[in-house]
C-alpha cells in the first residue's frame, strides 16, 4: 500500500516557531468541544482571514518554516487545521508533540527542507510519496522530502491512531 499523492494550492506560508497558541488560542478550547466550531478561530490572532480563505480553496496545503506547532500539547491545534479542510502541512521541521498529534488524527505532516523559501501563497504543489519529493508546479522547482517513517505511514493509511489500534487489538 502506498499513500496517494496530494496536489493542491498553498493557502499560507507561516514563519519559524509558529506555536499552538497561535494556531488556536487557549481561551477557546476550554469552552468548546465541537472542533468544527473551534475551527473558525484557527490562526485568528496572527491571521484573521485564515478560516474564510481556507474555505475558498479545495484541500489546501499549509506551508511553514521550522519548529511548526511548538508550545502546548493541545491537539485542538492540528484538529482545527484538519477541520478547515487542509490536506497536508509541509514544513521545514515540526515540534515533537504536534508532529505526533498530526499523524494520530490522520493529517499528513511532511518535512521538506527549503519549502518555506520555495513555495508562495497560491502556488500549486504536488506531494509525491513514491518519489519522496515535493514539486512546485507553478515554479517548476522540485525539492526532496524526508520519507515518512513506515509506522507513521501505517497510521495515515488506517486514518489515525485510534483506527490503527482498533485493528491491532481485534
Amino acid at each position, binding site marked *: 500500500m502506498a499513500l496517494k499523492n496530494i496536489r493542491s494550492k498553498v493557502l499560507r506560508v507561516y514563519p519559524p*516557531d509558529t*506555536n499552538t*497558541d*497561535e494556531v488556536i*488560542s*487557549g*481561551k477557546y*478550547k*476550554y*469552552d*468548546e*468541544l465541537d472542533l468544527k466550531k473551534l475551527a473558525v478561530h484557527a490562526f485568528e*490572532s*496572527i491571521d484573521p482571514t485564515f478560516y474564510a480563505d481556507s474555505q475558498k480553496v479545495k484541500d489546501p496545503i499549509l506551508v511553514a518554516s*521550522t*519548529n511548526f506547532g*511548538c*508550545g*502546548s*500539547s*493541545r*491537539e*485542538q491545534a*492540528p*484538529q482545527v487545521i484538519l477541520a478547515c479542510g487542509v490536506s497536508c502541512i509541509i514544513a521545514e*521541521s515540526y*515540534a*515533537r*508533540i504536534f508532529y*505526533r*498529534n498530526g499523524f*494520530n*488524527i490522520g493529517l499528513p505532516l511532511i518535512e521538506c527542507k527549503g519549502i518555506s523559501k520555495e513555495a508562495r501563497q497560491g502556488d500549486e504543489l504536488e506531494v509525491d510519496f513514491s518519489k519522496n519529493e515535493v514539486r512546485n508546479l507553478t515554479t517548476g522547482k522540485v525539492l526532496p522530502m524526508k520519507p515518512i*517513517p513506515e*509506522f507513521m505511514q501505517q497510521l495515515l493509511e488506517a486514518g*489515525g*491512531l*485510534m*483506527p490503527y*489500534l*482498533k485493528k491491532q*487489538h481485534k
Partner: protein
Amino acid sequence: MGKTLAEKILSEKSGKDVAPGDLITVPVDFVFGQDGTMPLAIQQMEKELGTRKVFDPQKVGAVCDHASPSPSEQVSNVHIFMRRFARENGIYFFENGDGICHQVVAERFAAPGKIIIGADSHTCTHGALAAFATGMGSTDVGAIMAYGTTWLRVPEAFRFQIDGELPKHVTSKDVFLHIVKEITADGATYMSMEYQGSTVDKMSVESRLVLSNMAIEAGGKVGLCPADEKVRAYLKEHGREGEYRPLAADKDAVYADELFVDASRLEPMVAYPHRVDNVKPVSELAGVPLDQVCIGSCTNGRLEDLKMAAEILKGRKAHRDTRLVVYPASRKVLADAIRLGYIETLVQAGAAVCAPGCGFCIGRTVALGDGEKALSTQNRNFKGRMGNNKAEIYLSNVAVAAASAIYGKITDPREVL
C-alpha cells in the same frame, strides 16, 4: 556501551536493549489529562474505540486546573463531562482548587523509572524525579487510557553539565533561561535533556522541577535529573519513600550534544515578548513598567517559591500601579504556605492569592487587558498566552518578580535587596 538516563528507563520498560531511534511500545505507569485536553481524549476514546472504560483506574488521573475555578457555564459543563467520566471509572480526580496537574502528579505519582504521559506539554516536569515523563495529545492519552501502553521513539540525549554555585537571587529558572538562550526554542527537539553536575546535585527537588518543566521550551521530549537522596527525601515527605530507587546515567553514556554551564557566572535572566528564547540579563530590561506581576504556575508555584516571594515582600507593598497575583501550585503548597505565614505576608503586601490552578498563565482567569505588560514566573510568553494577544509577557525567576512587584517595573533584585 553506557546508557543515558532515558535509554536506561526505556530499556527496562520495553524489556530490550534500546538505542536512539528505536520505536518501542511500553507500558504506562501513570496517564493524565487536564480540563483543556482530557475532554477531547474522552471523546476520542468514545467515538473511535467505542469505550469509556480505562485500562486501570489506579493509573489514570484527571485534573481540573486550567480553567479553574470555572469562570463560565460552558467550562462548568466541560468539567461535568470530565467529572462524570472520572466517577464512572473510579480514576483519580482532582477538583477545582486541588492544584496544577504537574504539581499534583509530582506529589502523588512521579517516581524514578516510571513512565508518565500527560495530555499537557509540561509533563516533562516529572523528569526531575527521574521518571520518563512526556507530553502528548488527547488522542494518544485516550489510547493509553484504553490500552495502557504507548509507542515511543527512543530519543537522542543532550547533556547539560551544570557546575558551580548559583549566586544570590539566581535560581534554576535562570539556569534554564540561559540554556534556552544558548540552544534556542528548537535546540533540543525530540531529545532527552539530561541535567547533571554539582549545581543540580545541590538543588532542591523543587528547583529541579523547574529545569525539567521547561525542557519542552527548547523542544525537549523529556527533561531528566538523576534520582539521588534528595529525591528520596522528597518522596518521603509525600509518604512515598518506598517508591525511591537511585537512578543515573552511566558514566560512559553517549550524548548527541553537550552544553557546559558555569552556574557561578549566571545572572537573573528575563525572557521578553514573545519568545521564551528571547533572553537577556535582568539589568538590560530593568525599568520596563509593569501592569501585573504573577507568581506561581507549574514552573514556580511551589513552597520554596512562595517562601522566596514572602521573604522579599515582607513588610513591603506591591506598587500601586501594579497588580500582584499569586497562584500556589497545589492545595498542599497553599496549606503549607498558610501554616508557615507566607500567605499572610503576601496578602498584606497586596497580592491577590488565588485558588491553586493555571489561571494567569493561560489567561482563563486574571486575563490581561489590551496593551498591558506582565512579568510572570511561568514558562511561556507566547502572544495571547495570558488571554490577550495585544499584551506583552516577560518571564523571570521569583526574586525578580517579587522585586519588580514592589517597584512596579522590571527590577534587578541584586540592586534593591
